[in-house]
C-alpha cells in the first residue's frame, strides 16, 4: 500500500465510522461494534504506516490549495507519528471503555456522542499528519468545534455554561493569537511548511521573534498554559470517556503537540534557545506546574483533581519545548506518550468509580479498594507513572526532563520539577491509599459496590499494562524520538 493511501485511510476511517454510526442509530449493538471495529482498523492502518514509513524520504500529500502558495497537505514526521500512534491506539481502547460506561450510566443521545467522538478523532489525526501550519490550524479549529457537543452532552445549564467557557477560551486564543502568529509567520517568511531546523531564524529581529513565540504559545489554548487553563476543568462535565480520551489525550495533546511542532519545525530549537521570551515562558510553565499541582491538592472532586493534574503535566511538555535543548525535545515528545497512557488510566478509573459506586469525591473513597481492587491497583500504578517512578513509563520522560533542565543550566526549573513530583505523589497516591487502607465511613460502605463493567475493566487493564510495557520497551519510542532532530 502506498503511503498516500495510508494517509487517506487514516483520515477517512473515523469519518466512515461516524457515518456508519449514524446509519445504525437504531441498533445500539451494531453502532458500538462499528465504533470498535473502526478504531481497531484505524490502529492497524497507523501501525502499518509506522512500519513502512522511512523518515529519510518523507511523503507529502497535497489535498487542496485554497490560496496561491498555501496548501492543505499531509506529511508524517516522527513527532506526528508518536501522536498518531498514541491516539490511534487509545481510540479503540476508549471505545471499549465507553461501551461499558455509557450503557451502565444510561446516557442519552448516545448516537450523537459516538458520531462527535469519531469526527474528533478525524480532526486529531489531521493535526498529527499536518504538513504545514495552515492544515494544522484548520484541524485544530475543527477539533474545538466537534468536541463541543461532547462537552455539552448532558444538556444541563452547567454543561451549557461549561460549553461557553470551553468555546470562549479556545476560540479566543486561537483566533486572536494563534491565527495572528501564523499569518505573521507567513508574512515574514512566505512559507508555513514544517521544516526541519525551522524557518524563522534570521527573518526578523530577536525581539520580534520573541513576541511571535508568545503569540504561538498563548494562542495554543489547548495546551492549557496559565492563564488560559480554565476551559479544561470546565470541560470535565462531559461523560468520562470524553474526559479520558479528549481531555487527557487528544485535545490537550493536540495543544502541546502544536507547541512542540512550532518550536522544532517553525522556530528551530537553536532559535528557541536564544530567545528571552522562551525563558520567560519556561518560567511561566514552571509556575503553572506548581500552582496547578497545589490547586489539585485542594480539589475534593476526583475529576477536577485529575484535570488540574493534567494542566500541570501539560506544562512539563511546554517547559521541555521552551528550554531550547535537544534533550528537552526528546523529553517532551516522550512525555506526550507516557502521560497519555497514565492519565487515561486515571480517568478510566474515576469513571469506573462513578459508574459502580456513584462516588465523585476523593473524601468518599475510604476503603473502596476492598470492593474495587483492580481499579484501585490500576489507579496506583498510573499515579506512580505520573510521579515518574520505575518500573513505569513515566520515569523515562521525567528522567530526561530533569536532564534537559540541567543541559539548559536552569536550577530553578530543576527544583520546580522535583518539588512538583513530590506534590504529585501526595495528591495522586493519596487516593489508592485511602482506598486500600483507610476505614470506611460506615460498615455497610462496600455493600453493593462491584468492580467496573467488564468492557471498562478490560480497557483499564490494557492502558495500565501500557504504562508498564512502556518502561521495559522504551527503545522503539526512543529511536523514534531521536529522529525528530535529524
Amino acid at each position, binding site marked *: 500500500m502506498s503511503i498516500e493511501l495510508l494517509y487517506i485511510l487514516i483520515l477517512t476511517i473515523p469519518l466512515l465510522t461516524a457515518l456508519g454510526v449514524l446509519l445504525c442509530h437504531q441498533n445500539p449493538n451494531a453502532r458500538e461494534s462499528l465504533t470498535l471495529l473502526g478504531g481497531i482498523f484505524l490502529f492497524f492502518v497507523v501501525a502499518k504506516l509506522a512500519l513502512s514509513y522511512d523518515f529519510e524520504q518523507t511523503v507529502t500529500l497535497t489535498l487542496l490549495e485554497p*490560496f496561491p502558495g498555501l496548501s492543505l497537505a499531509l506529511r508524517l514526521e516522527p513527532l506526528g507519528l508518536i501522536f498518531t500512534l498514541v491516539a490511534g491506539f487509545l481510540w479503540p481502547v476508549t471505545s471499549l471503555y465507553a461501551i461499558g460506561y455509557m450503557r451502565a450510566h444510561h446516557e442519552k443521545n448516545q448516537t450523537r456522542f459516538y458520531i462527535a467522538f469519531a469526527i474528533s478523532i478525524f480532526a486529531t489525526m489531521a493535526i498529527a499528519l499536518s504538513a504545514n501550519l495552515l492544515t494544522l490550524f484548520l484541524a485544530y479549529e475543527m477539533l474545538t468545534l466537534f468536541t463541543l457537543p461532547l462537552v455539552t452532552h448532558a444538556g444541563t445549564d452547567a454543561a451549557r455554561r461549561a460549553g461557553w467557557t470551553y468555546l470562549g477560551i479556545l476560540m479566543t486564543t486561537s483566533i486572536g493569537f494563534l491565527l495572528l502568529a501564523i499569518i505573521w509567520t507567513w508574512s515574514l517568511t512566505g512559507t508555513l511548511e514544517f521544516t526541519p531546523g525551522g524557518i524563522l531564524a534570521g527573518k526578523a529581529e530577536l525581539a520580534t521573534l520573541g513576541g511571535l513565540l508568545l503569540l504561538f504559545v498563548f494562542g495554543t489554548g489547548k495546551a492549557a498554559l496559565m492563564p488560559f487553563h480554565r476551559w479544561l476543568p470546565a470541560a470535565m462535565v462531559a461523560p468520562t470517556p470524553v474526559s479520558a480520551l479528549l481531555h487527557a489525550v487528544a485535545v490537550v495533546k493536540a495543544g502541546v503537540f502544536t507547541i512542540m511542532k512550532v518550536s522544532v519545525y517553525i522556530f528551530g530549537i537553536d532559535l528557541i534557545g536564544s530567545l528571552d521570551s522562551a525563558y520567560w515562558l519556561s518560567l511561566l510553565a514552571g509556575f503553572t506546574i506548581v500552582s496547578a499541582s497545589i490547586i489539585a491538592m485542594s480539589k475534593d472532586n476526583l475529576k477536577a483533581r485529575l484535570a488540574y493534574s493534567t494542566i500541570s503535566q501539560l506544562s512539563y511538555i511546554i517547559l521541555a519545548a521552551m528550554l531550547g535543548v535537544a534533550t528537552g525535545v526528546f523529553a517532551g515528545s516522550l512525555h506526550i506518550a507516557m502521560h497519555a497512557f497514565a492519565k487515561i488510566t486515571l480517568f478510566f478509573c474515576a469513571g469506573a468509580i462513578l459508574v459502580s459506586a456513584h462516588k465523585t469525591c476523593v473524601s468518599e473513597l475510604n476503603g473502596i479498594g476492598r470492593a474495587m481492587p483492580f481499579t484501585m491497583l490500576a489507579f496506583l500504578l498510573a499515579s506512580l507513572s505520573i510521579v515518574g517512578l520505575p518500573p513505569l513509563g513515566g520515569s523515562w520522560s521525567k528522567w530526561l526532563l530533569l536532564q534537559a533542565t540541567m543541559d539548559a543550566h536552569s536550577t530553578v526549573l530543576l527544583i520546580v520539577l522535583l518539588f512538583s513530583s513530590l506534590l504529585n505523589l501526595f495528591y495522586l497516591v493519596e487516593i489508592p491509599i485511602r482506598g486500600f487502607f483507610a476505614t470506611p465511613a460506615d460498615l455497610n460502605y462496600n455493600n453493593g459496590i462491584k468492580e467496573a463493567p467488564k468492557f471498562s475493566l478490560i480497557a483499564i487493564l490494557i492502558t495500565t499494562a501500557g504504562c508498564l510495557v512502556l518502561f521495559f520497551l522504551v527503545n522503539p519510542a526512543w529511536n523514534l524520538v531521536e529522529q525528530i532532530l535529524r
Partner: protein
Amino acid sequence: MTHLPVLIVVAPLLAAALIVLLNNRKVAWLITLLTSLFCFYASVSMLEILQEVDVISYTLGGWKAPFGIELRIDALSALMLLILTGSALLVSIYALKSVEKEIPDKNQVLFYTALLMVLAGLIGISITGDAFNVFVFLEISSLSTYALISLGRDRRALHASYQYLMMGTIGATFILIGIGFMYVMTGTLNIQDLSQRLPAVADTNAIRAAFAFITIGAGIKAAMLPLHQWLPNAYTYSPSVVSTFLAATATKVAVYVMIRFELSLFGIEFSFLQIPFDKILVILGTIGILGGSIYAVYQNNVKRMLAYSSIAQIGYILLAIGLASQAGFTAALLHIFNHALIKGTLFMALGIVFFRFASAELSIMAGIGKTMPLTMAAFTIGGLSLIGIPGTAGFVSKWYLVTALLDASLWPLALLILVASVLTLIYVGRVIEVAYFRPTLKGESQLKVPKTMLIALWIFALSNIYFGLNSDISMGVSTLAVNQLIGVAS
C-alpha cells in the same frame, strides 16, 4: 455578443416594464428568474472576455466618449457584476415561495418590478463609465429600494423606508453636488476623462469639496459608521427576500462607488497623499468593526443582529481600503465578494425561519436545530464563515486582511481585528446555542419549508465552503481588478 454590456442593464429594465403590463404573479416571477439568469450568464461571459482584454468599452449609440455615454467594464466592474447577478439569481429562486407568504397578493407584481429595477440600477452603477450616470442609476436603484422596504409586513417597515429615503436622498444629492463641482472645474463627466483632467485642478477647494461630498454621500449609502442609522431598521423590517438581496449587494455597490471615485477618478495620490483619506478610513473602519460587533451582541432580533454585523463587515472593507496598499485593496475586494456569500446565506436561512414563524426573534428559534436541520446547518456554515473559521470563504478574506495589516506594520490593529472576530463568535454562538441546545417550543409551526428556498440557501452555503477551499476565481478577479486600479491611478 458585442452588445452584452448594454443588454445586461436594459434587460432587467425592460423586463420590469413587461411585468407591469402582463400583471400576473406567476409570470412575473418567471420573468424575474429568466432575466436574472440572463444577467448572470452575461456577467460570466464578460468575465471570460476580460481574461483576454483589459477593459470592455461600449459606446451607447456609437457616440464616442467623452461626448457620448460609455459603458466600461474592467475587472472591478466584472467582480461587482458577478456578485450582483449571482445573488439576484439565487434570490429569484428563493423569492417564489417567500414572496407568496410575505407580500400581499396585489403587491406581488409590483414587488418583482421593483426588484428588477434595483438590479438594473445596481448593475448600471457598476458598469457605467460616466459620473453623472452613476447618480442616475443610483437613484433608480434607491427609489425602488425604498418601495421594496416599505412592502414589509410590519408597519414599522414604512418608517424604516422613510428613514432610508431621507438618508438615501441626502447621500445621493451629495454625490450629485460632488459631480457638479467636478464638472464645473473640468467640463467633462466621463470618468476616464475626469481622471486625466483632475490633476491639473486638484489643488482647489472646489475639488476638495467634491471629494468630501462624494465620500460622505457614498458613505451614507454604504452605512459607514457613523452614517449607518438607516440600515438596521431597513434590514429588520423589510421582507426577507429584500433584506437578503440588499445585504448581499446594496452596501457593496456603495463601497464600489467609493472605490471607483476615490481610486480610479481622484487617484491614489490625491485621495491618500493630499487628503489623508486613508487614515480617516482606517479610523472609521476600526470604529465600525468594534461598534457594529458590540451592538450585534446585544440584539434579540436576529435580523437586526445581522444588520449590525453588516455594519461591522463594511468596517473591515473600509479598513482594508484605508491601508492604501495592493494587499489592502485585494483584501477589500475579496471581502466584498466573500461577505456577499456570507450574508446571503445567513439572511436566507433567517428568511426560512421567518417563513415558518413569522418572526425573527431569537427566542422563537429555541430548539429549531432539531426541527429545521437543513436550514440551521446552512446558518451554521454561514456563521462559521462570518467568524472566519478556516475552510470557509470568510477565512480567506480575513487572512488577506491580516496579512495586509502586518505588511503595513499595524500589528496592534491586526490583533484588534482578530479579537473582534471573537465578538462575532459570541453573537453567532448565541443563535447556535438557542437553536441547538434549548428545548423546542410548544405549538411548533406545521408549515413545510419549500424546496426552492432550501435549494437557493444551500447553493449560497456551499459556495462559502467552495470559495474557502478554492479561491482561484475570487482571488484572480480581485487581483486583476487591483492591478488595473493601481495602473489607472499611477
